[in-house]
């Protein structure tokens, strides 16, 4: 079944978030705090920004196809 890439990307981010939550439950030292600040938070923020932009782009492409179909 064909799914939009932004939706697949959302699902991948959700799965990664679940893995982070699992690790975060057991990982509470200074290295964990540094990893979260240096890597995890920017990763989520930039992935979210990209996936939101991709969603808007896919919406626009669908509208363009629909609006030019005479």
């Amino acid at each position, binding site marked *: 079944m064909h799914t939009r890439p932004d939706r697949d990307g959302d699902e991948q981010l959700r799965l990664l978030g679940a893995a982070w939550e699992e690790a975060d439950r057991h990982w509470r030292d200074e290295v964990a705090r540094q990893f979260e600040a240096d890597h995890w938070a920017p*990763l989520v923020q930039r992935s979210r920004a*990209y996936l939101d932009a*991709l969603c808007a782009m896919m919406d626009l492409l669908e509208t*363009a196809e629909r609006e030019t179909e005479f």
Partner: protein
Amino acid sequence: MSRVHADIGALKGLHEALVRFRYAQRGVAERGAGEIELTRASLAARAGDWEARLEQHQAELAACRSRGGDCSAYAWAVEQAAERLEHVRRWQQRVDTEAGEFGGTASTFLDLLDSDLPRAESQLLAGIASLEAARRVQARAP
């Protein structure tokens, strides 16, 4: 002891998830770029189709006018084809503009996947190795 095992298992799971995420999101980005190109090609084909129809209707209108009589139906066909061609061209411009802006965001994201994420994976692996070393020391302790 069991606490250290749990830590390492969860961290290894996170590392595997990060690697899967990197590969999967590369595929997502490639598909996104592919969808943009498909739509661009589709709009270009539609614009080409309406250009051809406009030329045909213009030729029919010219032929009608040379014959004389009521040419309003031909004139209407020319007007409609011109409007639709313009409509498709406006969408082409809009998609090009938005795709250009999106390209900047996509490029930043690809940098994240190609550079930042492998660094995060390496740091996590180093942390796991360190924990495993600590566990070995703990296991050898009397």
